């Protein structure tokens, strides 16, 4: 499921599945990004904010950070897919209560960068990412869904 890189931002652990360098410009809020004609290339979306508001600006964004205030709040999964479905190719980072058991789902929704609040055990993460070789649905990752494997 892609090669995992361990990096850090400002000393915090960062898990990345991208080849480029981590984007180090601090992310601005959605409101200030939209209101202030900014040149910012990094935005942070809070859980309740509308990812669609970013769609006209995707080509100048290098980093979108999506907040997961608790792992039970699943709105970020939809935000991730919406951004990827619209063609966003930059870094998509899940930040907050990002845990090993949810991380594979986030990968499927297009996230390729993770800023977990608490460190994730490397071996558990590897096992978790490698566990499922087959998936029923097409999503925002390159996985070939089971129905396509069945019918070509």
């Amino acid at each position, binding site marked *: 499921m892609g090669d995992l890189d361990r990096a850090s931002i400002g000393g915090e652990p960062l898990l990345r599945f991208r080849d480029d360098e981590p984007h180090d410009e601090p992310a601005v809020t959605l409101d200030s990004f939209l209101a202030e004609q900014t040149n910012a290339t990094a935005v942070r979306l809070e859980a309740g904010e509308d990812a669609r508001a970013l769609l006209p600006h995707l080509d100048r964004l290098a980093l979108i950070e999506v907040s997961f205030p608790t792992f039970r709040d699943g709105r970020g999964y939809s935000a991730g897919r919406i951004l990827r479905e619209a063609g966003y190719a930059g870094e998509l980072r899940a930040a907050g209560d990002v845990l090993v058991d949810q991380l594979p*789902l986030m990968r499927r929704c297009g996230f390729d960068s993770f800023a977990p609040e608490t460190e994730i055990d490397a071996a558990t993460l590897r096992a978790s990412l490698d566990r499922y070789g*087959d*998936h029923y649905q097409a999503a925002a990752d390159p996985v070939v869904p089971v129905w396509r494997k069945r*019918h070509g």
Partner: protein
Amino acid sequence: MYRYDQYDQAIVDARVDEFRDQVRRRLAGQLTEDQFKPLRLMNGLYLQLHAYMLRVAIPYGTLDSRQLRTLAGIAREFDRGYGHFTTRQNLQFNWIKLEDTPTILERLAKVEMHAIQTSGNCIRNISSDQFAGAAADEVTDPRPWAELLRQWSTFHPEFSYLPRKFKIAVIAANEDRAAMRLHDIGIQLVEQDGAVGARIYAGGGMGRTPMIAPLIRDFVPVDDLMSYLEAALRVYNRYGRRDNIYKARIKILVHEIGADEYRRQVEEEFVAVKQLGIDPPRAELERIQAMFAAPAFSADAPEAIDRSDPDFAVWLDQNVAAHKQPGHAIVTISLKSIGGIPGDASADQMDLVADLAERYSFDELRVTHAQNLVLPHVRKADLPAIWTRLREAGLAEANLDLVTDIIACPGLDYCSLANARSIPLAQKLAVRLAPRQHDLGELKVKISGCINACGHHHAGHIGILGVDKKGVENYQLSFGGSGAEDVSLGKITGPGFDEDGVVDAVDRATCTYVELRQAGERFLDTYRRVGMQPFKEAIYG
């Protein structure tokens, strides 16, 4: 029946491995209970009052003898020799040890079963019509569609942490045997211009704020179904309330913004989602349908049934339904013996039913949302032999849809959320009303031990809700609900009762019905015609 291929098996096997690892990490203290809870819930494992409860998925209520025997074996080895069939056509084991669950899941996986998404804030086990594939009134067998949905919803990456649980039912007949419009999404398969498609209702549900789902889309062709449902779920995932657990179901969203606005948002989302190519080809539905092909019925099965035994004749009239194939019938096995626990079956009873299915019903069985079992494809000539075997096992109660065929949730005997006991009340009511049950005719009594409404009390012709009144168990009574095609929500009669008081009240209400009924009227029909007042007078008089 559906059979797993290598992919289905690999996914279920991986799930067992994953859960084994999660249990190991929990027992080693690497996962907090708070972190572990949603993981175990998504695998059907609840912490109840006395022990863990494991809820096993029975997708669209269909299983075969091998699977039922496996469940019986698990009941013997890991539980106390019983299983409990639920209103979502699943099976619960009430006395499970956490450390045994990976082994139990492994046993289940060997017979193509699992406990995936039988709980948690995700898309739950898909329910359906227990007479699917056997009923004369269906436009198609709904189960292949339900299987398509099972696969689509399994570990859905976007919809595993929804605001709240999400229940989907699929039916394909006008007679609704699955309470379809009381689901988060209810799907009725209908025919339009020679093609079968899905009519979509959304925003129904029971619980604290019961709602009947409004129609959202008249017809979704099979080629668009997954895209349409992704759109419907995405709107809910993004905008369903997360600030209050009691307002988090989709019914509240649909109610607050209105069905028209919800529909508009879904349609808009659908336009975007449809571009993505996420709908399986039609060949996938056809592949599944081939596995649900009708069994090899004998074309010349005789129609005649020997009715000379009066007890048999009563059971025949009550528990046996018409089959689409001449010379065949559908048998409902009541799990509501008078004074027994509604929906419970012993391991021995499960084994016996498995034998009967294998021998007489093309190896097929169904679970009903009313917590009974069904032999869907039986030759009429075999009915006396089946009845004899059932009677020996205490399973020949002739009470389908009668006043003693009570739906009851586990209540305070097991459930940590309960306000009151459901099971002992169901037992008392059944004992009291059994002598008059055939005279009273169809009368659906449903009991929930708290406002979560697992016992579907809102949909009961007579509904009973356990409430806590200053630390004392109290029961609220309601009349006029229905989960069938004439769907409606029950209305509260007035002040509540203690356990004996509610039994008396129900008894009196049934007497009022007998006095007032016109020819052919069920309790529900009489209530709808005359209203609450005469019943109120009889009860509170």
